[in-house]
């Protein structure tokens, strides 16, 4: 009985009970509500909310295992496959990215894996970048109308291809970067903090260097994150790892904290503009929180390579849909027939299956 009253079982159980009771209550209530003309029925709304929650939960699980923020998956999918206004999608994407980071903050901070000083240092530049990005997104939406919607989809399609490529070839990030010299500015900051590395059964002392350059790189990551509302964990981790020499595991932990902290700044322009619609964003938020905690505590043993291949396939297909939708909105091409979409999807599925089976050419196998 005692273990059910301890964190995280207590909060997970409480949230699960509330979700189950809540959705059953909504289902029962919706049976007796009349649907007005031109409105969506209460039953359909209930199904949509449950669907959003489940999708968000799955996204959070995949994101935790793949070591990225949920926004990277959420925003491109919603922009590519729905007609929902891009400002609303990006605002909700920022909520998804932020809460996927916030929920991991507690455990990482408690264990000492994340480094608060490093996070504060980088959050100052990430926050400025994210705010600039969010402001730019709103200016673009206000001034460019439909062309802006098309350009955003095209640009995001290009970025998603780059992310997918990064996951295929794995980048040059290193688990334990070797630091030969620490510059004076970084030395004065006194960032390093030893932590207990459970997988090695020892205390790890690490160094950090080039803090100023790291802040510059994170500023750029913040702009991307704020503009597209998709988080920037995929870029923040390599930036910390390669530029500042932060160990990979520490960089991954700090990236979650950093995104959560930085997006607390970036999200407000969206919220104040009315782009965060409570009933639409709520199930996504709940899915991220519950999926994030569950993923971190229960699914840690799942083979990451398997999920990574699915993620790569998902990213390539999403980028295809984003680019074709952008070109369609710019009237460069006609609407893509379902058969073509299906064909591309099938090809990608086959490639993913081949990769999982280890029958794919070198790059994907080597980095799994």
């Amino acid at each position, binding site marked *: 009985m005692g273990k059910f009253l301890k964190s995280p079982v207590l909060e997970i159980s*409480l*949230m699960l009970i*509330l*979700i189950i009771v*809540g959705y059953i209550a*909504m289902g029962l209530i919706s049976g007796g509500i009349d649907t007005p003309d031109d*409105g*969506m*029925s209460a039953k*359909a*709304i209930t199904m949509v909310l449950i669907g959003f929650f489940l999708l968000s939960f799955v996204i959070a699980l995949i994101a935790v295992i793949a070591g990225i923020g949920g926004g990277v998956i959420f925003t491109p999918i919603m922009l590519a496959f*729905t*007609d929902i*206004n891009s*400002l*609303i999608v990006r*605002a909700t994407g920022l909520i998804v990215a932020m*809460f996927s980071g*916030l929920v991991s903050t*507690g*455990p990482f*901070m*408690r*264990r*000492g894996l*994340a480094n*608060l*000083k490093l996070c*504060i240092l980088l959050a*100052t530049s990430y926050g400025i970048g994210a*705010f600039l990005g969010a402001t730019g997104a*709103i200016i673009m*939406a*206000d001034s460019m*109308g439909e*062309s*802006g919607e098309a350009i955003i989809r095209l640009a995001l399609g290009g970025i998603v291809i780059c992310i997918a490529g990064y996951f295929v070839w794995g980048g040059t990030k290193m688990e334990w970067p070797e630091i030969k010299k620490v510059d004076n500015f970084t030395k004065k*900051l006194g960032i390093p903090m*030893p*932590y207990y590395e459970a997988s090695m059964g*020892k*205390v790890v002392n690490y160094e950090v260097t080039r803090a100023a350059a790291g802040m510059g790189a994170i500023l750029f990551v913040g702009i991307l994150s704020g503009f597209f509302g998709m988080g920037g964990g995929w870029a923040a981790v390599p930036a910390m790892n390669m530029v500042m020499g932060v160990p990979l595991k520490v960089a991954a932990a700090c990236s979650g904290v950093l995104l959560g*902290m930085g997006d*607390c*700044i*970036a999200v*407000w*322009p969206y*919220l104040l*503009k*009315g*782009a965060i*619609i*409570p*009933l639409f*964003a*709520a199930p996504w*938020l*709940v899915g991220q*929180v519950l999926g994030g905690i569950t993923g971190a505590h229960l699914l840690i043993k799942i083979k990451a390579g398997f999920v990574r291949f699915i993620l790569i396939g998902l990213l390539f297909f999403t980028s295809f849909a984003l680019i074709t939708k952008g070109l369609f909105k710019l009237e460069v091409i006609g609407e893509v027939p379902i058969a073509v979409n299906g064909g591309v999807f099938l090809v990608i599925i086959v490639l993913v299956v081949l990769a999982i089976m280890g029958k794919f050419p070198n790059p994907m196998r080597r980095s799994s």
Partner: protein
Amino acid sequence: MIERPAVPLSQRVFGEVVYWITILCAILCIVGPVVAFVDMDENVLNPHFLMQDIFDGMAAESVIEIDADITAGETVLHLKDTGDFETVMDNLRDESGIALIQSVSAGDTVLSIERIKDFEVAQTILIEAKDVEEVAIIAAIDQSAKTITIAAGLMNSYAIEAQAEVTTIDEPVIVIKDDHNQETGIVRAIDKEAGTVTLMIGVDQSYSKDAHGEVGEETIWQDAKDGVAGGHFWKDNFTTGDGLTQFGLCLGCACGFFATIAAGLIFLFKEKSYGWAIGSFWIAFMIAVSAIGLIALH
């Protein structure tokens, strides 16, 4: 047994504050939508229409500044740019167009078309040809002669050689507002080159540039109760389902503020790390500035 290094108090407190506020706001976001279902009409945004509007791609925000003051009765609005409205007609289109079988000139009210059975009196239609389009209301239909009579004379000429056609559309509603007045109007035509929007009927009130006169497409928030436009609407609507949910979202979005303040105080008084205390307070300050809209776009 290896002794684990102690995690600084500031870091532990930061983590706990963030974690528990996140859990609390998730619980509010579970309870809020259930409360919203108890009485749908009590919400700031009625969920029936809200979800439909979201899936229809309706905007959350649409604003274009006016380029000249508008006086009551005026039908032509001069805007700084018509970018937002360029595809407004396309988005409202119900089905594909039906061709005109006779060219018409500006001022004409009778349109001869290929097929008449899909049209009804009082319907809104879009008449378009290459590079020119306008909206009209059907006043009468003659089934045998295959003609439509529109309520007001055409603004432009439409030649059958330029693939002129007629399409039924939903009413292209726009919102005109400034700091003092607000009303909706129905678009009759958009002139991209001149940067003007012509309305079916003249505006009831006057709008000035100095009072931040704006024109925009109808947004999700147009049907909101009490005329709120998003943001911190929960303050006056805390007991409604979506107000409670919005409070949960705002609390979560502000958790970085509370956590950095708490960590900053520990840096300052307990750990005597003044530089890091300033860093923490700086982040809290940025969140606060962003949250209260001190840096806002008009």
